[in-house]
């Protein structure tokens, strides 16, 4: 802090490594045994300072648990989580390659971030409304959305319940408490706060659960959410998925000189937790903690999930253009699927055979579902969506000017 760079030039933060560099993350301290302790969920928000700036973990990299955040889930639940995560990754892979084959216009993977979506969903009640981004498809696996429906949305075909109106991955599944994903980043954070306010107003103990990438925390809507959640003590969980990248921009562009996205919650007097997002148990425990707080009238919690986006931003992106090709491999927090699997192995509840068998089963399931979905058409095949549907649901009823336009179109 003794440099005088502003006298000579503007400071522009840069990531430590660019293509051609050999990435080395040994400076990132992997916290040892004891992560910040688990306070009572009704603690005064300002008491979560340590939780907001440290890193809450349960699973060590070798798969053994430690610390008081361990939710002590039974083996069946753990295996269920593993299955949802593996299914998510399987679906992602299949859809990615189908996009490459021209079956759909676009796709986005969540590789490396599966624990965040899946553990969150499992820690919530089905009646809690999630306001996801495009990288929480794991929630849909955990809540049991038929794969075929997901795939039909991506294929914009006759089976797409959204009538081909949105690009792939912008799902909407009200019956599973999955809010319609907006293409506009950030907007849903404050909507979730509003939903939470509505839950409170109606006297239910349902809550709202929103997700944003770390990049999109820079939008005003994120702060509106913090502010409204704080002012009205809305029962909402505001999740920031810090996967280090926002397309080609590293997290330092959004973070600036700050060291924790979670700590932005503290500034509004909100409980704040910073969690190892590759640790299924830590994510589960953190969300559970926040739900307890919210349902008991303690208001909102901000949770930063510290993770890494292992793949490109989307099928339109080539990450080797802006970061070293090897960076995902040397990222020091491991893989969420591997980590949960080795935990189960440590418990004596899992082994390589079962893992491979599950993988084979899920791959087959995905292949089957995809076949069924593709039978209903792809973007490349002539659309079976009725053009007249284009004019519907702009309003509840078709107004005169849209009727005239539909007629002009000859239908």
């Amino acid at each position, binding site marked *: 802090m003794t440099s005088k760079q502003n006298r000579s030039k503007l400071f522009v933060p840069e990531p430590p490594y660019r293509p051609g560099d050999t990435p080395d993350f040994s400076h990132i301290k992997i916290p040892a045994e004891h992560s910040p302790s688990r306070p009572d969920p009704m603690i005064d928000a300002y008491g979560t300072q340590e939780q907001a700036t440290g890193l809450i973990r349960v699973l060590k990299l070798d798969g053994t648990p430690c610390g008081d955040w361990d939710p002590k889930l039974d083996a069946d639940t753990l295996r269920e989580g593993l299955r949802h995560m593996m299914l998510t990754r399987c679906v992602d892979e299949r859809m990615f390659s189908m996009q490459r084959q021209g079956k759909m216009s676009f796709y986005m993977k969540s590789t490396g971030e599966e624990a965040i979506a899946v553990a969150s969903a499992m820690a919530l009640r089905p009646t809690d*409304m999630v306001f996801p981004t495009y990288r929480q498809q794991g929630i849909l696996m955990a809540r049991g959305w038929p794969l075929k429906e997901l795939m039909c949305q991506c294929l914009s075909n006759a089976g797409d319940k959204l*009538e081909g*109106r949105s690009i792939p991955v912008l799902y909407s599944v009200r019956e599973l408490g999955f809010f319609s994903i907006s293409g506009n980043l950030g907007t849903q954070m*404050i909507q979730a706060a*509003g939903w939470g306010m509505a839950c409170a*107003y109606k006297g239910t103990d349902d809550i709202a659960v929103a997700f944003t990438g770390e990049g999109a925390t820079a939008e005003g809507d994120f702060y509106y959410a913090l502010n409204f959640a704080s002012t009205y003590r809305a029962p909402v969980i505001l999740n920031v998925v810090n996967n280090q990248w926002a397309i080609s921009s590293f997290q330092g562009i959004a973070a600036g000189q700050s060291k924790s996205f979670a700590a932005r919650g503290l500034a509004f007097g909100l409980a704040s937790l910073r969690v190892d997002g590759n640790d299924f148990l830590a994510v589960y425990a953190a969300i559970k903690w926040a739900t307890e707080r919210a349902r008991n009238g303690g208001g909102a919690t901000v949770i930063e999930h510290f993770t890494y986006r292992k793949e490109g931003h989307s099928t339109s992106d080539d990450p080797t253009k802006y970061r070293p090709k090897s960076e995902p491999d040397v990222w020091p927090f491991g893989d969420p699927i591997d980590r949960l699997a080795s935990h189960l192995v440590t418990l004596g509840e899992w082994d390589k055979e079962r893992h491979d068998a599950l993988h084979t089963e899920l791959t087959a399931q995905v292949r089957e579902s995809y076949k069924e979905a593709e039978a209903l058409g792809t973007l490349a095949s002539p659309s079976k969506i009725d053009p007249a549907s284009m004019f519907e649901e702009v*309003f509840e009823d078709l107004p005169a000017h849209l009727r005239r336009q539909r007629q002009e179109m000859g239908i």
Partner: protein
Amino acid sequence: MARMNMIEAIRSALDVKLSQDPDVLIFGEDVGYFGGVFRCTAGLQEKHGLTRVFDTPISEGGIIGAAVGMAAYGLRPVVEIQFSDYIYPGYDQICSEAARLRYRSAGQFTAPLTIRTPVGGGIHGGQTHSQSPEALFTHIAGLKTIIPSNPYDAKGLLIKAIEDNDPVLFLEPKRLYNGLFDGDHNKPAVSWAGHELGEVPEGHYTVNFEKARLLEQGTDLTIIAYGTMVWVAQAAAKAAGINADILDLRSLIPLDLESITKSVNKTGRCLVLHEATRTSGFGAELIAEIQQHCFYALEAPIVRVTGWDTPYPHALEWEYFPGIERVQTAIQTIMEA
């Protein structure tokens, strides 16, 4: 039947809906205890409670974003934006979210919220307390845009807006709040008490969006206006001694094109008025439709009298405002064409 000015009529509409429907909530800057800078919500918090009528942070994006979430849940939020000049921080939530939610979710989620906000000049509010931004909203598919010109309509339209299942932008011409204003700023405002449209039922009633009000009937000319300009039209037509159909649109989206074309096909001449800046104002849309549907009936170019394409100046407010004189000149131009 009670006598109400426009503020009282709006308050009455809110009161009726708060009483009838527990899912109606009202919030916005200073609308709670204080009752709003224009007093439209005065007394409502006291009557209906702190959690039904409350203050918000100064965050138009937050107000509208929270309302979208509540509306999607199933509530019917009615929010106030203190001046329409301050609606822009909430523009994204209106255009990208409220207006799109039903479509993109194929009807799974909807956003039945009402956004009330004062528009127009005439109170020496300068650039940032005088704007009429309706055309920035009529371009947005999925949004309804309403603007009443009198207490009776204000109440009926507002109740209708709150009950509507689509998002509604409800624009309140602030210069009409306390009395009828016909553009002559040298004369004291005319109390609504003496006007038939200041007679407002106490209870529930609605005014439909689909139908413009034919304020005056004539054969020489069609004048299309909304909000404050309706009364300027009336005064100018009288001053010009012209026999005009004066249409008060009440709703811009949906638009009562049928009444408009019927009138213009009858009169063959048309004048379009608004207070907003001219270029890309809603007048342009009206003209585009009218010339298409009434081309062969038109005997003269359609003329628009509007605010100038400048910010709304403070000292030169009345040079900016499209007043009686300018409207009268335009009437003459059309009649002589």
